[in-house]
């Protein structure tokens, strides 16, 4: 008895259709005493018949110009073999079989598959989903080749750049979803695909050397921990090298993104401060390089500078330096380009003034605005601080006797208006003329800063006179 069983066990291995399945079917029909030999040869026969049907169905598949067999092919095959077709299968929505979770109490049953039926809530469907009628069959025409050359139009698959060839090795088109020949889904991600295509086009323009240069450059600049010699060399290269025009949009974008990420995180850490510094250096280097044609990109460059300048919380260790250098960069930018862009400085002025005067701005922002005004020039300082009342606003916010970067910046700005005298001579309140000056300066500068200025008579007079001259 044991011998035939061992033999039967071997037969199990060979066929696809197992004799166990035959037994199961027999049991379901009430036949319990099915000998192993019968079951095994029945299984073999069933397998042969299945192959016969599939072979026939594959012919229908081929003639239907498809590469996957559908239930309709099987139906057709059964029909021509003079067997009643299996009803209830529809090629429109092929059944999806799901594997059931194993039963805990019968572990050795084997995998159980079932057809997954989606439950549809009619109420919800009627309320929410708009059932759109599928579009009818339509056709489009395009040129696949014009005199032997395939035009690069969206209807044709993109040509594959030669150096990508190695990456897309043996992958049949049917199975590969990400292959450029087979965009993932045209209907859903047309926009995305177009973006990809545009990127590809640009990449083809950008030479390999430039790409390499770009990656080297950015990696040596950021993160700022990299050694300073390299960084200096990179900045020098940016400052002086010709032929970087093609990289300019990428560099500016890189700077912009870098600034955003650094500022987004609250910009409290040392590292952020340092990277901001480096980015500002990069901007100034770009501005200094006179082989670059930067004007089309000014609108992209300005937000980076202004954000650094006016951001409320810069890392304390770097704040002053950052704002100063941002202001310097801004001034350089303005001196270079305000002639070609007359509207540039008024616009920047406006931004700075808003930051300076409008209420509930932090001290950092105000300081930045003042430094920016200083960077723009004497005229801007006069307009912003004095005429716009910036000094008064700042003064009113400062507690008496306060010192700090904000106050320093105002003092610096006032220095611009008129340099302080070498030998300060303080104002005398009892003196009639001096009292008048005090009165005047209080009026213009506000109490807080007027007091700061009392120590230097010439300076006060100079400031006041410069205001008067202009007005």
């Amino acid at each position, binding site marked *: 008895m044991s011998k035939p069983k061992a033999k039967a066990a071997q037969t199990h291995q060979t066929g696809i259709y197992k004799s166990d399945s035959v037994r199961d079917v027999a049991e379901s029909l009430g036949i319990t005493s099915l000998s192993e030999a019968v079951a095994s040869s029945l299984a073999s026969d069933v397998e042969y018949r299945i192959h016969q049907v599939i072979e026939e169905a594959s*012919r*229908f598949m081929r003639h239907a*110009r498809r590469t996957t067999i559908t239930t*309709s092919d099987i139906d057709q095959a059964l029909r021509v*073999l003079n067997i009643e077709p299996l009803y209830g299968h529809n*090629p429109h929505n092929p059944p999806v079989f799901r594997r059931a979770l194993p039963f805990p109490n019968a572990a050795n049953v084997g995998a159980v598959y079932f057809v997954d039926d989606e439950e549809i809530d009619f109420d919800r469907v009627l309320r929410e989903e708009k059932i759109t009628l599928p579009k009818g069959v*339509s056709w*489009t025409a395009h040129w696949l080749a014009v005199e032997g050359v395939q035009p690069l139009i969206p209807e044709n698959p993109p040509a594959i750049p030669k150096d990508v060839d190695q990456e897309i*090795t043996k992958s049949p088109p049917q199975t590969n979803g990400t292959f450029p020949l*087979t965009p993932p889904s045209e209907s859903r991600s047309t926009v995305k695909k177009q973006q990809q295509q545009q990127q590809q086009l640009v990449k083809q323009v950008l030479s390999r050397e430039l790409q390499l240069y770009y990656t080297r450059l950015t990696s040596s600049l950021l993160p700022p921990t990299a050694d300073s010699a390299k960084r200096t060399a990179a900045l020098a290269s940016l400052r002086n090298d010709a032929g970087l025009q093609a990289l300019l949009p990428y560099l500016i974008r890189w700077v912009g993104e870098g600034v955003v990420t650094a500022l987004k995180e609250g910009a409290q850490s040392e590292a952020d401060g340092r990277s901001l510094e480096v980015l500002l250096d990069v901007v100034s280097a770009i501005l200094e390089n006179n082989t670059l044609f930067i004007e089309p990109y000014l609108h992209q460059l300005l937000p980076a500078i202004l954000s650094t300048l006016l951001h409320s919380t810069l890392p304390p260790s770097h704040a002053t330096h950052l704002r100063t250098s941002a202001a310097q960069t801004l001034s350089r930018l303005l001196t270079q380009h305000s002639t070609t862009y007359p509207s540039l400085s008024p616009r920047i002025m406006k931004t700075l003034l808003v930051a300076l005067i409008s209420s509930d701005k932090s001290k950092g922002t105000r300081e930045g605005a003042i430094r920016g005004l200083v960077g723009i020039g004497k005229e801007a300082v006069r307009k912003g601080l004095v005429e716009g009342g910036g000094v008064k606003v700042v003064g009113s916010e400062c507690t008496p006797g306060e010192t700090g970067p904000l106050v320093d910046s105002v003092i610096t700005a006032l220095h611009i208006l008129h340099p302080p005298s070498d030998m300060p001579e303080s104002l005398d309140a009892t003196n009639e003329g001096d009292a008048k000056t005090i009165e005047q300066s209080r009026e213009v500068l506000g109490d807080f800063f007027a007091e700061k200025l009392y120590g230097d008579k010439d300076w006060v007079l100079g400031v006041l006179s410069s205001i008067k001259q202009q007005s």
Partner: protein
Amino acid sequence: MSAATPAASSSGGVSPTNASAPDVTQSVNSIDRLVLEYLRSRGHKDAEKALHESLESSVDESVKTVSAEELIKSLAVYAQKPSRPGDNVLKESANVLQELTTMGNPPSIQNLIASLGTVGAEEILSVDPTDKEEGFRELEAWVEGSLDMYKPEFRPILFPIFCHFHLDLVQRGFKEAALRFYDTYSPSLAPMHHATLHHLSTLLLPSHVQNDDLAQRFKNEKYVIRMSRSGFSLLVGWLTEGIGGEASGAGEGFSGEKGKRGRAAIMRVVNNHLRFDVTSTSGAAVSPNAWEESTGLLSSLIPQTNASAIPNPHAFNASKGELKLGPAPISEELRAETERVIREQSVLDRDPNAQYDLQFLRPPAIPGVVSPTESDMPPHPPSFKTLDVQREVEKVRDARKRIRLEPSALSSVDLNSAQGGAARARGLPSICAYTLHDVGEGAPCCTFSPDITVMAAGFSESYIRLWSLKNEKLKTSSIKESGSLAKLQQKDACTTRKLVGHSGPVYSLSFDPLGGSAMPPRYLLSASADATARLWSLDTMSNVVVFRGHQNPVWDVQWSPMGIYFATASRDRTARLWSTDRTSCLRIYAGHLSDVDCVRFHPNSLYLATGSSDWTARLWDVQRGACVRVFIGHQGSLSALAISPDGRYLASAGEDLAINLWDLGSGRRVKKMTGHTASVYSLSFSAESSMLVSGGADWTVRCWDVRSAGGPGKPRESTITESTIARTLDGENNETSDLLATFPTKRTPVTNIHFTPRNLCLVAGNYLAPDSR
């Protein structure tokens, strides 16, 4: 009825068996005893019993130890049974058994035994499965160990011997041994013979072998192998004396007992089932693909004429004499009228050059090609119509305005250089792709009208859709309704029309060619899985005639180049010729061993080419209904055919992903073109027959140079980016050097390729949405 058929057919064979029975009793008895002892010693109880039975029943039926019924049952599996189309195949073996039991009387058993044929005492000897394995291992070792120059000759021997061993094992019920044998040795044969091997692997029980067509062909036909004289003598030497092969001591060798029996098993197959076509050419001169043409179960593929066996396809093709492949004659009146019209028009257009157009009316005769005369042609209406004149005039105009394609210009130029661009423009066509979107279950066919005003597509959902390509309204002139209703219909006519009538997927469509490129077509033919072909009138947009006659799905339909007649190809293994005015067919072209998958007319409409799932293409004489050429060489079912407009070449594409080019005159293969990575769905020649364009399931359109010699591809270093894509896709470069260009499409299998008379190439296919399964 059906059970009586084998008995009757084998009655001729009964008498010799009976006559020789007494001799057998005396001479065989001693051998039989030895055999029985041998079997007993080896423990083959079943075989012993079978031998007992067969000996007892065949030698002396009066002394019967087994009951008749039992014997019938045990022999039922060996009974040969003619295959009857339309039968429920799954019931076959049961039927046989039943029929045998009903006729269970001694004389019919006698007949049955006589019909067994090959099952004899000597075969029982070969029952030990290990013999076969050992024998095949030895043979493989010998073939692989032979000199390089003989290897291509010897390799084809392995396959038939493998098949016979496998079938023998299955037939004798050694299922495990057969599967083990298959698993061990099939991988080395799989690259060449994948399809056949897979089919054989599905046979598991003796009854399957008995009922399977292919297995029966293996059993009953000789497998032909072509071999040089010296190669053949080497093989014979090895088989008889064991010369060559592996070194002694490596295996059991031919000196061992097992080896001897293995050799005997091979000898038996070689003697019974192989035929060597010994040639005097040396093995070295044979090209690597030549075996495809001369190896295989050829005898049934080649139509046999009265008793004289024809050994190979070339002999058959030669025996059929010359074909008339020249262009069809034009009646003198029609030509004169056409000339007159052309002259008139040239005067009207003030175009003096148009005078020279007349030369196009008389195409230059190609030397060596015979043109048919008026009497050869199938009957056509005696008088011509205005339509015919217009068509001929347009033909001349097309010929003048044709874009000349010279693919030969490409061969010598580097495509990347400056001249390369110009050469490309001269050598390669412009291709316009028509893509169908939102096709539900699939569109098996898509076709353009000859004047390219209408495109038609047949769908799996049983309907046909027409589109006007010029964005004009497709009008219907209704016959019955008049007045307001007709006007109403005219008003809401649109640029597309749906033709409903079939009850199964529409597999093929064909527009009537009468209008040529001058007039829109008036009729459309369709073939469908519902076993009918239908004729649709494009004037009324309705079904006019249903042609019934085929038993099974109709795979293909095509109009004759001059209208009136058309041909269909069906799963019932026949192609048929019809005329539009009769509902029954005029000719049946029978002879293919499997489905006829595609059908194409010769441009002069004297011949019809068919491609079949029996791996062959045939050329038939349309009027006589006789096969005049057979083309053997594909290693899979044929999927597409095209005949060149000059009438000299046939291109065929098969499931072996190769495109073969055949010379119709000699019936020989000109070359084999490979490069496609999936099925080829459509082929088309350019108007000068200098270029072949193919498209298929690998989402590409490929252009082939017809004139170049072909051969294995040179490693082309980034000449054309498209070809490098293809190369990286299939991993290895199997493109032949005559592949000029590859144009990938976006997920669009190309189902139809159409060259206009002016050499613009149109391709059609349906876009596969990526998420569809």
